């Protein structure tokens, strides 16, 4: 074994998996996990911990894996993270824990994410679940949204003895984990549903089909329903469009719509009633995780897929592993290009997309080099569907129906980072609703902070 290299992880063959929805990465077995764990140098001043937004004690859990004490490793992780089976799979490790791992200086970093996933999967398969509170403290907290942020906040509060109810707008709990991230990256039944079940086992009630701001307002939760505090973890679900001609044509979808049909409504499975059209050639516009997920879903439904992104490969914001997998599966990347118009026939059906080539200029505010159109470089590509994946912003449903809740100019709820405290008494918030579209682990971290903030507030009241 070459200690400079990660123990390779088993994956489904690209030419097989690009036709099914089963999980791409098969994960480590015990032997492989122990071998990978032995690459960790157990650094005293472990930089990896600082790289993890929830500061998991990485060397400690890895040391337990090395010894084969997986249950113990799980306890170490559980001190900091409520959703390790999810984070091990979807964290952008290369820019977090693994990005700063000492091993990475000369060789490849330790495969922290894959080890975390192994431990979490092992714990689930062996029926180990987190422990709830012995005694209830009689106080009620409402959590809005059952994404990673809401689930984490609810779980932490339940452990402290609070009577917690999550209100979820959709018919299933999990937020982006169920409606956005596809089955082939994050299995819904084995992983997500099991994590939701764990939160329920702590005593948390989940009421689906309740849209706060419509079914009830936050003030009604506090005044009529007897909740002592509210945590808003409603995410950033509002899709953006480009505003180019033809964008309202029939086969132009937001990535959210396309992915929701496929994931939440399981439209890819003919047994389910929700339709999803199968296309021959699809253009996906954008370069984030969402774009990769939409592209790889369309591919699996039989299309040739082009990802159109206006910057270069280096700036692609998606996780490195997803870009790598997408390429292996046969997604075509049309980089440094930008759509200017969507072409349609007289029935409003998409027939093509007009694209202009770009070059990179000076760095902009984000520090990335600004893409500039190359005059006269426009060309047309025949496609029969376009999926817009240009990012999302927080849904105004809650902010517009809650008096006294301050939002910023990006429509995000203003909340203190350490406590989740908002401008409205007894109301806390975190996750994508506060930061705008970010990551699972950051949303979880915010849920933890919110639980702490609410606990402090209610302990002093």
């Amino acid at each position, binding site marked *: 074994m070459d200690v400079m290299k990660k123990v390779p992880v088993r994956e489904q063959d690209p030419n097989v998996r690009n036709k099914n929805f089963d999980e791409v990465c098969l994960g480590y077995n015990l032997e492989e996990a122990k071998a990978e764990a032995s690459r960790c140098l157990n650094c005293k001043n472990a930089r990896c911990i600082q790289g993890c937004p929830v500061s998991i004690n990485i060397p400690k859990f890895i040391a337990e894996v090395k010894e084969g004490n997986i249950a113990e490793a799980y306890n170490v992780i559980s001190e900091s993270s409520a959703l390790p089976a999810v984070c091990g799979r979807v964290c952008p490790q290369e820019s977090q824990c693994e990005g700063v791992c000492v091993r990475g200086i000369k060789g490849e970093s330790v495969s922290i994410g894959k080890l975390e996933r192994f431990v979490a999967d092992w714990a689930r398969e062996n029926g180990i679940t987190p422990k709830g509170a012995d005694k209830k403290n009689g106080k009620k907290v409402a959590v809005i949204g059952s994404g990673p942020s809401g689930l984490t906040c609810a779980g932490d509060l339940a452990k402290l003895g609070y009577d917690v109810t999550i209100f979820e707008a959709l*018919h299933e709990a999990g937020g982006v984990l169920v*409606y956005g991230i596809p089955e082939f990256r994050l299995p819904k039944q084995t992983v997500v549903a099991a994590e939701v079940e764990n939160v329920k086992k702590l005593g948390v009630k989940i009421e*689906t089909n*309740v849209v706060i701001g*419509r079914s009830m307002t936050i003030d009604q939760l506090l005044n009529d329903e007897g909740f002592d505090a509210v945590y808003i973890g409603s995410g950033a*679900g509002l899709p953006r469009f480009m505003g180019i001609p033809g964008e*309202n044509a*029939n086969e132009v979808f*937001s990535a959210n719509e396309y992915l929701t049909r496929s994931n939440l409504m399981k439209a890819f499975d003919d047994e389910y009633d929700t339709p999803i059209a199968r296309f021959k050639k699809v253009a996906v516009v954008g370069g984030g995780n969402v774009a990769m997920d939409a592209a790889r879903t369309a591919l699996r439904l039989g299309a040739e897929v082009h990802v159109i992104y206006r910057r270069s490969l280096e700036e692609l914001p998606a996780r490195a592993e997803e870009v790598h997998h997408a390429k292996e599966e046969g997604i075509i990347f049309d980089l440094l290009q930008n759509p200017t118009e969507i072409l349609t026939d007289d029935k*409003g059906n998409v027939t093509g997309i007009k694209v202009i080539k770009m070059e990179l200029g000076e760095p902009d505010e984000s520090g990335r080099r600004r893409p500039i159109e190359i005059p006269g470089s426009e060309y047309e590509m025949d496609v029969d569907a376009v999926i817009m994946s240009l990012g999302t912003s927080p849904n105004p449903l809650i902010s517009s129906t809650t008096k006294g809740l301050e939002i910023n100019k990006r429509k995000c709820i203003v909340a203190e980072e350490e406590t989740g405290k908002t401008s409205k008494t007894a109301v806390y918030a975190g996750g994508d609703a506060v930061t705008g579209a970010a990551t699972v682990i950051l949303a979880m971290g915010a849920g933890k902070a919110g639980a702490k903030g609410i606990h402090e507030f209610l302990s002093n009241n």
Partner: protein
Amino acid sequence: MYKILKAENIADKIYLMDVEAPRVASHCEPGQFVIVKMDEKGERIPLTICDYDREKGTITIVFQTVGASTEKMAKLKAGDSFQDFVGPLGRPSEMVEEDLEELKKKKIVFVAGGVGTAPVFPQVKWLYAHGIECDVIVGAKNKDLIILEDELRAIAGDNLYITTDDGSYVRKGMGTDVLKDLVNNQGKKYDRCIAIGPLIMMKFVCLLTKELGIPTIVSMNPIMVDGTGMCGACRLQVGDEIKFACVDGPEFDGHLVDFDQAMKRQQTYKTEEGRAMLKLQEGDTHHGGCGNCGND
């Protein structure tokens, strides 16, 4: 689970159900809708709230069978349940939030087309309950497709005007013909028209009211998935803005809505084959806008 307390076939291919949904019933207002999902594998189907009983905690829905899901739904009986029933969604009708004194000065006319009578009903009921009279025009293809006549008659009395396309009941002609007649020949003046029905009907009402100078509100029914503003499937061009019907609507200024685009978008999930099938199955009840029938 959300229990169905009553299920009736009230006209050809049109069904009425009372469903137990206390959270929805306690907060809903006229103009809002719900999304129902029959079972694990079902679609999310948006339906307007036709009536509600806050005390009993029930919601009344009225729907027409147009495709696979609504056909399946029509088979449900009293005692069965919906797995999911979410709402109220969308914004209440403008009138609910308006100043009552101002509203009382306004003369309002409703134009309902086919199953669009169902969403008109709670608004008419609300107005009369607040002491405001209004005119109601109900149009349908034929006599068998007139719904809620007795219920509306009990509220609006002589202010209810019924018409059928084929003249099989009361009079021959469309809702637009009645409106034209009331304004041009019977000296009626309206400050506002509220039109709800198939897209093609709302489009023609809007063309007429633009001519007559009557501000018009329409209730849009685009394809929806989540109904919470998350997917954008329901987007519409309204003036120079893109609106999401599920959160910004479903009611909009009819003179600003791009109906032609909306009609095209509604066809997205209808295959050529499916459309032909639809026309065949629906026969006389075919309500237009399927994209295959030349909008008749």
